[in-house]
Structures are given as structure tokens and as C-alpha cells.
């Protein structure tokens, strides 16, 4: 029990029945953890008394690797953090480098970036929605979610040749201009997907069993969310109206009009609602950016070697799961002296031990699924 805090490591006994508390490992290989995460549960019967996440099973030392490569080379590693927010991670890293080197990004590239980022948000939420259904015992949402996600992936594949690890948004702009049919494809997707969201809501949100499984489960208070630094839909479902796109706008977000969905329940149901609403807003953002997209270059001309000047730089971006921040310290050479990735999932998962207390084992699955953590982003 070396890995557990003393309060979580000692088993009590129920004086009436004589039953002892016991410990169960959930993971490291467990379908509901969506990756390699181990939770040590301290249980009394089926009630969770304490929970300790054990991290690091997919730690790759991304920050250390970054110290050995140039800032452009590092872009591809950001894909592999939260792989469902690949475009946003690329964007975040590019912003840090662009700020450090004072690079101006062409207008067309700014629009492509927003469209790609919001499509990524939609595809990430589609996957989350499908998997949430499956976690709670409904298989159909999984098929629906992946059916629609394919369409987004097809757009990505046509544009940058990749469906998961994009490496498309990079310092100075984007790799290459979008292909000819891009606007047509994206519009077709938006028109196709808009009614699908209503269908999603009826299919899963309208299901009584689903509602019972999520309402009042895993309530995260706004005070705790703030203190732990929770961000993204997880914090917004707890009434913390915080979104980097609004509080610290980057790219062309200031020119676009969109709502930030906020709920006050703080439970799994609220987190579900926030993400469903976000998909609608993202569609609207994509359409606006597409309408306003100008012609022109998509990459700034960069020097052959990007030497990061002396200084510390920070970029902040709203990824699908919350705020991802890249901290970059340069020493005048082409390689970063130090870089640090602030993972939204890392801070969001920190809320789990607190909000899981008192719930049943099956509820842990619902809470984990609505926290929507991606393990490679936590472990880095």
C-alpha cells in the first residue's frame, strides 16, 4: 500500500456485520479507463470509500524529448498528447513558438486553423458521446458516434493525409493549403451533422436509464473545480464560465460570435449537456470561419533555423478537454532549454478521488467517462 495515502490505505470494519473494507484494482487495463490508467478503489461492499489514481503507464518523456529536437520537430509530438485534440495541440505549440519568434500568421491560415480546431472538437465529442453510451451499457451510440466521426476524419485525411496524428498546424501557419473541395466537404458535413445532434440527444439523453445513471453522479463543486485548476467542459458544467477562446482569445476567435455553454449542476448529466451544446456552437463557428475565409498564403516565410530567443513563453489554447498550455523557455539556440505541457486532463483527473467518494463502482465508470480523460495527455 506504498502507493496510497494513509487514509486510503487502512481498511475499516463494519461493527454490525463484521465485514471488512477491501481494495480493488480498476485497471491498468480496463475498458472504461480509455487507456492505461489504474484506479485503486477502497470499497465497503460496493460503495467507494476512497480512490487513488496511479498514473504513468504511458509516460514517454515528451518534455525531455523536446529538449533534444528543434521547435518545429516537436510539433508532431504534440499530436500524441491528447490525440483527440491533435489540431488544437499543434496550434497551442505553434502559438508558443510564434510568440517567442514574433511570427505573423497569414489570415487564411488563421481561418483554416479555427475550422480545423472546431472540427476536431466535434470529432472528439462524437467519440466521447459514443464511448459514454458504451461505458454505460448502450452499444448503439458507439456506432452512431463513429459513423459520424468518419466524416470528419475524411475531411482531415483529404487535407493533411492523417486521421489522428495530424501535424498540420505548425509554427508560421499550416503545412499546406486545403484541397479544392474543402469548403464544399465541410459545409456538407455541417448540414449533415446538425440534425444528428438532436438525434444524439433523443437517443442517449432522452433515455431514462441514462438519466438515472448520470444525474447527481459525481458532483464537482465550483470551488473545488477552481482550486484544482479544472478547465474545459468539466469546469463549465460546474458553473465555472471559463473558456480560453473567450477569456484569452487567440487566432480569429474575437471576430466570431459563439456561446459558451455553462451548466451549474456539476454532475455527470451537466457535463453531458455541456458537450452536446458545444458541438452545436462548434458547427456555428466552423460555418462563420468558412464564410469569412480569404484567399492568400497559408504559411509565413520562416528562417531555415528557428532559434528560440532567450525568454520564457506561454501559450494557452482551449482543447476539447480544457485548457492546454505550452511553456517554452529558450536560450537562443534552436532547441528549447525547457518545455512544459500543461495538460487539461491531468488537472481534471485530480478531481476524481474527491467526487467519486460515496458512489458505487458502476458510477465510477460514468464519472470517468464524463470527465473524458485521455491518458496519453496525462502521462505525456
Amino acid at each position, binding site marked *: 500500500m*506504498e*502507493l496510497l*495515502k494513509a487514509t486510503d490505505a487502512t481498511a475499516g470494519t463494519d461493527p454490525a456485520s463484521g465485514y471488512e473494507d477491501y481494495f480493488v484494482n480498476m485497471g491498468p487495463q480496463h475498458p472504461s479507463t480509455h487507456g492505461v490508467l489504474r484506479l485503486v478503489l477502497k470499497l465497503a461492499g460496493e460503495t467507494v470509500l476512497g480512490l487513488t489514481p496511479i*498514473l*504513468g503507464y504511458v*509516460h514517454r*518523456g515528451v*518534455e*525531455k*524529448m523536446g*529538449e*533534444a529536437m528543434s521547435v518545429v520537430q516537436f510539433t508532431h509530438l504534440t499530436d500524441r498528447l491528447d490525440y483527440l485534440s491533435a489540431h488544437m495541440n499543434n496550434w497551442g505549440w505553434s502559438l508558443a513558438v510564434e*510568440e*517567442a*519568434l*514574433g*511570427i*505573423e500568421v*497569414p489570415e487564411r491560415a488563421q481561418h483554416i486553423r479555427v475550422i480545423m480546431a472546431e472540427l476536431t472538437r466535434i470529432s472528439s465529442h462524437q467519440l466521447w458521446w459514443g464511448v459514454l453510451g458504451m461505458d454505460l451499457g448502450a452499444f448503439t451510440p458507439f456506432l452512431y458516434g463513429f459513423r459520424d466521426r468518419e466524416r470528419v476524419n475524411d475531411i482531415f485525411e483529404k487535407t493533411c493525409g492523417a486521421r489522428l496524428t495530424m501535424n498540420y498546424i505548425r509554427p508560421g501557419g499550416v503545412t*499546406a*493549403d486545403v484541397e479544392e473541395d474543402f469548403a464544399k466537404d465541410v459545409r456538407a458535413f455541417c448540414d449533415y451533422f446538425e440534425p444528428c445532434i438532436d438525434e444524439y440527444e433523443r437517443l442517449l439523453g432522452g433515455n431514462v436509464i441514462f438519466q438515472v445513471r448520470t444525474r447527481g453522479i459525481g458532483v464537482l463543486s465550483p470551488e*473545488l473545480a*477552481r*482550486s*484544482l*485548476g479544472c478547465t474545459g467542459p468539466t*469546469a463549465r458544467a460546474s458553473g*465555472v464560465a471559463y473558456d*480560453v477562446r473567450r*477569456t*484569452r*482569445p487567440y487566432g480569429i476567435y474575437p471576430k466570431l460570435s459563439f456561446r459558451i455553454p455553462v451548466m451549474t449542476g456539476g454532475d455527470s448529466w451537466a457535463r453531458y449537456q455541456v458537450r452536446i451544446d458545444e458541438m452545436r456552437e462548434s458547427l456555428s463557428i466552423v460555418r462563420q470561419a468558412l464564410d469569412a475565409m480569404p484567399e*492568400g*498564403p*497559408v*504559411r*509565413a*516565410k*520562416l*528562417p531555415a533555423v528557428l532559434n528560440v*530567443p*532567450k*525568454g*520564457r*513563453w*506561454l501559450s*494557452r489554447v482551449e482543447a476539447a478537454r480544457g*485548457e492546454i*498550455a505550452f*511553456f517554452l*523557455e529558450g536560450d537562443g539556440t534552436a532547441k528549447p*532549454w*525547457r518545455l*512544459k505541457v*500543461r495538460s487539461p486532463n*491531468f*488537472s481534471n483527473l*485530480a478531481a476524481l478521488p474527491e467526487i467519486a467518494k460515496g458512489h458505487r463502482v458502476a458510477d465510477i465508470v460514468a464519472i470517468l467517462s464524463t470527465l473524458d480523460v485521455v491518458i496519453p495527455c496525462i*502521462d*505525456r
Partner: protein
Amino acid sequence: MTDDKTPAPPADAPVAAPTPDPAAVAFAAEVERALGEGATRDALSGVPSWRVEAARIVDAARRLRDAGFDYLLFVTAVDRPADGRFELVYVFGSFADGRHGALLADVPRDAPEIDSVSAVWAGADWHERETFDMFGIVFRNHPFLRRILLDEDWPGHPLRKDYVDTLHDVVKRPY
């Protein structure tokens, strides 16, 4: 591929031209008022940063939080072997706006110890564990200071510049 018409930046472009942005000046004044005496503005460009005595870190963190900086983005460290110190970096912000700054504190490389700020911002708990894991910096009064990403018996602290990874040898650059 489109034609690139954007002119190339000059070879040694000036970094962070010192334009006195009124919002940045107001932010600096607010932070300095909150931190009080003993905090010095760090000269490095980029993120506005203030350095405090390591012994004062909890007090400084509490002052910032009470002044409305309720959001701790992360805690990390930067190894400076040439100066024989680790520089701890606490990046703070607020849930109400998008401003941020960094609180810095130096600890000696041969005996790196500092007080934990996890009582001020609960989120510091895991971030300090990560910093302990990667740099070997000890956080006093931490509720549960254990390695968080690496194995308990992992040799050394990988993000130190003198760490040698005998298995992969990923860092080619001498420091």
C-alpha cells in the same frame, strides 16, 4: 502549394519589443501590490515573472490567490546547472480573465527543498509530485509526496540536465 508572399522576418528579429502596453502595466501593478515587499520583477522576456525568496513561497502564493488569482495553471521547474540552482515556476492566472504571470523561486541544486503550496491551490498537489518526480525537488508539508509518473524505484530524475538515459540516450546536447 500556394505562393508565399509574406516577407521573411529579418535574421535577428527583435524579440518582444518593449511597447508599454497599459493592460500589462496594470497587471504588473496589481501583482506587485498583492505580493508586497520582497518580490522582484524578473528581466527575462515573455511571461511577466516575479521572483520571491524560497522561504516566502507559501505567503506569496496565498497573497496572489487572495488578490483574485484563483487559478494555478501548473507548477514546474527549470534546471540551471551553470548557476547551481533549480528555478521553480508557478504559473498563475484567474478564472475571470485571461491574464497570467509566473512566480519564481530558486532552490539550490544540491539540497532542493521548498514548502508546498497545495494548501493554497489544491491543484498544486499533483503538479508538485510531478516536479518532485522529474527534478527531485522536495516539497515540505506536501500531503503525499511520491513519484507520480515514474516507477517508485526509477533511478534519477529525468528532467535534470545531467540525467543520463543509458537506455535511450535521447539528449544529444551537452549542457
